[in-house]
């Protein structure tokens, strides 16, 4: 955790924690109205990667570890009471809470933890979040006794604990997995979390209700959480302005114009600006023509004006070009001055545009026609129009094809696209390794372009294994220089996303998570009268 991010989180937390709330006694009861940007469709938190899947199930499950709801930058035990690490840093032993029960009344034990991680770590099981983070690190998981579990690592790895604490590494019941085969069905949402899964009406609403047998006595304070499925910026903003939702803490963030509009409409909300550990990417399918040709990937890399995209589509709230954001990971990020001089990022664009045009003409003298995909969420349509407009300058004529959110993810996952105009990817952990293991390595869960670069794989693994901070930093700098310097990546980093969020002033003890996925269980949140 970097100092800069901690400072930011503390600042946001300070803003959100009023003096009054510190002295008030938590109140039981009330329903928190929240929203999802789309319909999750599938609910398997181990097998899916959209934020809406995480949101739909967040309060239902517990992890072995999690980020402290009151100090979101700190990892604490959840189902694990405590843990120890062997002197060589390769064996982690977790001592589990006793007397925990699943929502269906069955007892929780180490067998459930083993079943969960055997599933996630299975090489044949595609787990784009938890699996993508842990597979490179964890060798095996063993249940020593009903209340003890050990994780054997392949090598000592700093990102192990933060990865394990990620909201994607939830513990599922062995008997539920055996009964349903996966965690997609609403009936299979049986966790040990503060809330029980109550209802899922496709395209409409998801509801949780208070778990009276939650393993922390007295929690949660809320009677339930209601998540409205609100697709599209105007609908979300209209709901916020009409006081139908009490919290806007997740993706997509509001843009400044939306925040200003909300500020004019409501005086009972706190509006704040924050980063959400999310990167805006453009993907090219490196396994299919025309972008199996590195020259054409390079042409797109050079043609894209990241600064214009950030200025217009994020209204300036973002960090253009960077693979790692210094605001989030400190000096692991290549200095922005150096990033600004790399091909595709450097301004003015004349030299890069001329080279891009030459590359397109070399292979397609009459220009190139491509289909450009996007999901119909957030302001992706605006971003995609800018991307297509920029490509037209170098002879690439894109036709936009819009997909419904879940259908789009399915298409990206199958490699069923030529180019994705815009796709945000949020980090699971606040560690420099995240972006590489989510987007850039061959096995990365969101390497939709399917570009395999042996040097990226090698450097990412070396950085993961490296215990010395300075050497680790040098490895990440080398990685960033390699990807940015080649300028033929299939995952073009446009910029790190920032934005505006709000919470109802009646909401107490809510803290913005380190990533957009964390701290959404609402276990300690309460509503003032």
């Amino acid at each position, binding site marked *: 955790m970097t100092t800069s991010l901690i400072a930011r989180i503390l600042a946001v937390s300070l803003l959100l924690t009023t003096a009054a709330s510190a002295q008030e006694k938590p109140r039981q009861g009330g329903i928190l109205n929240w929203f999802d940007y789309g319909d999750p469709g599938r609910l398997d938190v181990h097998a899916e990667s959209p934020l809406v899947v995480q949101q739909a199930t967040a309060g239902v499950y517990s992890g072995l570890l999690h980020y402290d709801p009151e100090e979101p930058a700190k990892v604490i035990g959840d189902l694990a009471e405590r843990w120890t690490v062997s002197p060589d840093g390769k064996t982690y032993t977790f001592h589990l809470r006793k007397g925990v029960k699943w929502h269906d009344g069955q007892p929780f034990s180490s067998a459930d933890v083993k079943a969960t991680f055997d599933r996630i770590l299975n090489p044949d099981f595609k787990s784009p979040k938890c699996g993508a983070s842990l597979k490179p690190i964890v060798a095996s998981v063993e249940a020593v006794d009903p209340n003890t579990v050990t994780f054997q690592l392949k090598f000592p790895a700093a990102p192990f604990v933060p990865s394990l604490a990620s909201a994607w590494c939830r513990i599922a019941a062995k008997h539920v997995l055996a009964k349903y085969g996966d965690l997609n069905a609403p009936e299979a949402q049986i966790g040990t979390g503060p809330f029980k899964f109550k209802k899922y009406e496709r395209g409409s609403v998801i509801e949780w209700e208070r778990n009276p047998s939650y393993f922390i006595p007295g929690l949660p304070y809320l009677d339930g959480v209601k998540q409205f499925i609100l697709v*599209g910026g105007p609908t979300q903003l209209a709901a916020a302005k009409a006081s139908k939702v009490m919290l806007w803490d997740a993706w997509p963030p509001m843009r400044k114009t939306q925040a200003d509009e909300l500020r*004019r409409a409501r005086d009972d909300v706190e509006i704040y600006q924050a980063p959400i550990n999310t990167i805006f990417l453009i993907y090219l399918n490196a396994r299919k023509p025309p972008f199996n040709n590195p020259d054409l990937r390079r042409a797109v890399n050079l043609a894209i004006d990241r600064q214009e995209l950030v200025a217009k589509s994020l209204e300036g709230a973002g960090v253009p070009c960077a693979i790692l954001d210094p605001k989030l990971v400190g000096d692991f990020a290549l200095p922005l001055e150096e990033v600004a001089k790399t091909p595709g990022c450097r301004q003015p664009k004349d030299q890069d545009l001329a080279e891009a045009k030459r590359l397109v003409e070399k292979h397609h003298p009459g220009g190139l026609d491509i289909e450009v995909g996007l999901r*119909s969420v957030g*302001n992706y349509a*605006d971003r995609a129009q800018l991307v297509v407009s920029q490509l037209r300058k170098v002879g690439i004529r894109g036709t*936009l094809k*819009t997909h419904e959110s879940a259908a789009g993810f399915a298409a990206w996952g199958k490699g069923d696209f030529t180019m994705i105009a815009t796709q945000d990817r949020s980090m699971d952990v606040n560690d420099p390794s995240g972006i590489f293991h989510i987007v850039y390595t061959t096995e990365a869960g969101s390497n939709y372009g399917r570009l395999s670069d042996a040097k990226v794989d090698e450097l990412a693994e070396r950085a993961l294994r490296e215990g010395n901070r300075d050497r680790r930093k040098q490895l990440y700098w080398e990685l960033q220089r390699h990807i940015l310097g080649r300028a033929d990546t299939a995952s073009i980093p446009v910029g790190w996303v920032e934005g505006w969020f709000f919470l109802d002033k009646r909401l107490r003890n809510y803290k913005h998570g380190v990533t957009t996925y964390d701290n959404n269980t609402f276990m300690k949140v309460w509503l003032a009268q």
Partner: protein
Amino acid sequence: MLAALGRFVVRQPLGAAGALVVLALVAVAVLAPRLAPHGPKETGFAPYVAPSAEFPMGTDQVGRDVLSRVIWGARLSLYVGLASVVLGITLGSLWGVATAYFGGAADAGSQRVVDSLMALPPIILALSLMAALGQSVTNVILALTILLTPTAARTVRSVALGVAAAPYVEAARATGGSNWRIIRRHVIPNCMASYIVLMTTNVSYAIVVEASLSFLGAGAPPDEPSWGGMLTAGVQALETAPWMVFFPGLAISLAVFGLNLLGDSIRDLTDPRLRGGLG
């Protein structure tokens, strides 16, 4: 010619006003490349610039000139409206004429197909078709064609049933005229009035459906200068940039108003009970 035009203006002043609006619309559509100060997809300007001398209708959320997009939008709307109406009404009319003339099981069967298509709410049918066909201007035309065909088939069939039973058609049969010749020489010409009225009254309908589909994100791709698509973008910044909604909304209203006035007038002129004649 001028005298007939003068009589039309006097007897159908609203129709004349509608014709004027439609003529202006056609002129804007045809001359779009000359009239538009910038490309409809050119994003090189600052976003959300209020109407000014440089940008009379302001700029949109990605920095495009709204005036240029409204002008190019006339071309898209007219193209989609005319193409889908010509295709849909022509196919439907031919369908109606053929089933009315031949009658029997084919007529009964085909009318049940028409019933089924007309039972579906038009916008739901159009949305389903767009979901199945995918987003493109061509597919919008195809979906509108499918939407318009049954209405035309049902309307023209009702006229053609009367024509097919007329004594002059029986006489043509008695003299050995082939079915094709009778349809071509006698039935179709006598259904032309209905065909023309259907054509004129449905262009505005097609424009509104296209705009609705684009507004719902199921019509033309988002970067195409569709008036409906521009409304969708405008709604996202209703308070910040109301001009993004105002000008395309005004364009839709004017176009539909003009086409409706003209269509009503043509209907009046072709209806023997209403027309006073121009001659």
